[in-house]
């Protein structure tokens, strides 16, 4: 047992340490500084080991702290007029049932279990039990500490607080034993890897009981919950025998790993089929153009469902909102003035709105998955002449798609200003819609430029560029911050936005012309 414990720790730690080093190697700039022999450098290994141990401690305590705080304490404070201890116990009880039943740790289809049992052929029973009891130890510690803290705050008696960790661990052991029994009877797991819908159903049901009953103004009485919590403690002790005597650990692990593998393969096939389904089967679609224009026209026509339909929908929703606001202006006396005031003060908010409605990432993903992914393997496609020609065509296309909702918003703004009787600043009628259109063009240029300069996918259609992901995230953060923190007059904002968008578009296109023949390649 000791040897198994040591080995399984060493294995898990190696796996984690290597994962940390691999993650470091993915960070842009840092990856250039780190040596290729990273995995052999003692200093880095020690550093990663320290991180790994910290992760183990954080995993034991921080996770439980967040759990108690977010899932139990915070929701408890929302429901007024109920005893804090009753609410606390009620929510904790049902949530623990979710965790106990669904968060299986005995046959977890994780990589380290696969390496240990399948590849290294370690003793499956010893490995499973050692890891399971180690997990139970960690669970007990975490729940004992935070159960005591949060339980005391909620007004629980000391013995009730102490009952919590024993209840949780007892429940998990009982669930594990129940699973073993089911395996013996049916040959199947309680919740096989493929049973996603069942898991979801049970989770929603228990979550409904945990939060739904208090929302309806009722909760189980603390005494009842305590009796119910005592049951798994007893069944857990009785279940230990089942765990220790079960002798099919290896075959069950093999079954779980096979299911996991087939689920992964299925996901891949589904993704492939999904991308094929996006292509229209309409045989009447054709094009009278030639060359790159021919390719682009057929691409757009055959992907209308994913390219134009969402833009049309968004435009429809925007038009409906404008119509509703126009009605409000007519119906409510002060609504017009309030709307205009809000627009003047909070105009930068349109950055975030346009960020959300732009179809940049959807467009570039479709381009890669259904077109560039294969054509980039042909050398003619990478010739600057064709590449830049197609970039121009695509840029116009994405601008057109994004302009549709932007146009509705822009015209809607003018209508609202007019209906509200805001004739004071005639310049607003021109500058506001134009700035909306410019911001829309900005997002179109931005995402297509990122795609051409950082082409993030490999031939297996996997996202491989951390730089691309960082750029996309930074775009969101900047849009968010500008939208909520920029407090300048609408006219000044619009003028600056127009100037910035035009300048950005010019610079971005210049960069694409200069660098994309080198950067727009399949990643290896």
């Amino acid at each position, binding site marked *: 047992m000791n040897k198994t414990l040591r080995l399984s720790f060493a294995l898990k730690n190696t796996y984690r340490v290597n994962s940390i080093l691999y993650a470091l190697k993915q960070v842009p700039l840092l990856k250039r500084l780190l040596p*290729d022999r990273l995995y052999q450098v003692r200093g880095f290994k020690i550093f990663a080991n320290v991180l790994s141990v910290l992760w183990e401690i954080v995993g034991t305590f921080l996770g439980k702290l967040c759990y108690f705080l977010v899932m139990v304490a915070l929701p408890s404070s929302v429901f007024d007029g109920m005893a804090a201890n009753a609410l606390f116990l009620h929510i904790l009880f049902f949530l623990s049932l979710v965790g106990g039943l669904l968060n299986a740790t005995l046959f977890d289809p994780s990589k380290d279990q696969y390496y240990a049992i399948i590849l290294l052929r370690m003793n499956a029973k010893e490995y499973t039990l050692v890891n399971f009891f180690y997990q139970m130890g960690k669970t007990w510690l975490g729940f004992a500490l935070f159960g005591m803290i949060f339980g005391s705050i909620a007004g629980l008696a000391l013995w009730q607080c102490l009952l919590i960790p024993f209840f949780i661990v007892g429940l998990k052991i009982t669930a594990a034993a129940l699973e073993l029994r089911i395996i013996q009877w049916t040959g199947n797991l309680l919740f096989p890897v493929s049973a996603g819908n069942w898991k979801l159903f049970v989770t929603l049901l228990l979550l409904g009981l945990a939060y739904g009953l208090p929302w309806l103004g009722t909760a189980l009485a603390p005494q009842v919950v305590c009796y119910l919590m005592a049951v798994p403690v007893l069944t857990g002790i009785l279940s230990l025998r089942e765990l220790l005597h079960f002798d099919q650990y290896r075959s069950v692990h093999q079954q779980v790993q096979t299911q996991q593998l087939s689920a992964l393969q299925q996901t891949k096939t589904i993704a492939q089929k999904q991308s094929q389904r996006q292509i229209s089967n309409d*045989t009447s679609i054709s094009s009278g153009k*030639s060359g790159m224009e021919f*390719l682009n026209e057929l691409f757009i026509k055959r992907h209308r469902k994913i390219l134009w339909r969402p833009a049309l929908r968004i435009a429809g929703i925007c038009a409906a909102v404008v119509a509703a606001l126009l009605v409000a202006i007519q119906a409510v006396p002060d609504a017009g003035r309030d709307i205009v005031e809000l627009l003047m003060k909070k105009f930068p908010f349109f950055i975030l709105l346009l960020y959300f409605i732009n179809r940049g990432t959807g467009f570039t993903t479709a381009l890669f998955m*259904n077109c560039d992914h294969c054509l980039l*393997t042909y*050398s003619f496609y990478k*010739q600057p002449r064709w590449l830049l020609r197609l970039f121009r065509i695509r840029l116009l296309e994405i601008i057109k798609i994004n302009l549709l909702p932007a146009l509705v918003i822009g015209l809607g703004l003018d209508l609202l200003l007019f209906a509200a009787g805001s004739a004071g600043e005639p310049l607003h009628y021109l500058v506001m819609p134009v700035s909306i259109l410019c911001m829309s063009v900005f997002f179109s240029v931005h995402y297509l430029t990122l795609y051409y300069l950082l082409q993030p996918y490999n031939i297996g259609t996997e996202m491989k560029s951390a730089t691309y992901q960082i750029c996309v995230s930074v775009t969101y953060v900047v849009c968010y911050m500008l939208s909520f923190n920029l407090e300048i007059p609408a006219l000044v904002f619009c003028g600056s936005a127009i100037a910035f968008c035009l300048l950005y578009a010019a610079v971005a296109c210049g960069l694409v012309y200069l660098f994309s023949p080198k950067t727009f390649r399949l990643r*290896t």
Partner: protein
Amino acid sequence: MEFVIEHLSKRFGDKEVLQDIDFSFESGKIYGLLGRNGAGKTTLFNCLNRDIRFDSGDFYFMQGQQREKVSAQDMGYVLSTPTVPEFLTGREFLKFFLDIHRERLTDIRPLDDYMELVQMEPEDRDKLMKDYSHGMKNKMQMLVNIISQPKLLLLDEPLTSLDVVVAEEMKQLLRSQKAGRVVIFSTHILDLALDLCDEIVLLSHGILERVEKSDLDDDGLKKKILSALREEGHE
């Protein structure tokens, strides 16, 4: 015409995958490129197709005494997994390809003539390629690479996973198209290399080595190749 590789090197970290390769290929021949797993065959192809940057060296064509740069249009690259734009029909893909190459292609024939070349059934020609089988996609990929009349055609295990009939058709097609160009055919199947290729080249220790046939029969040649590849594995 000759295709010449000069001092081509590529290193991934500390591992030198291609080590100062010097080799020349004659046109009109199919070269079978053999090497063990990880020997660098795909890396070599990716360097030649300029999909990845190489560290040093050059490659070019020699027409008599004249040295010519290798442009993108001189190159055809057929992958083992066929990659064709699935939103187009076979006919549309072919039209698109001919549109792009119209300026440099002489004697452009009707689309159906090309389809005949790879024995594509008439009823399949106007189907979207997403509904094509693996073999049909492979035929289309091979066809467009041949139509563009590249001076250098790189084939990375293109016949793997094709059924015997399509594989035989493809072999015939390659034989008929080898005149005037260099064809480099990477494969793991020794019998296929011996059957199809005029020359066998080994990629081992990061360098290319021609296998001299001398007076050896197929069996003798096989033994020679295997022993050369085994040597690499033992080091």
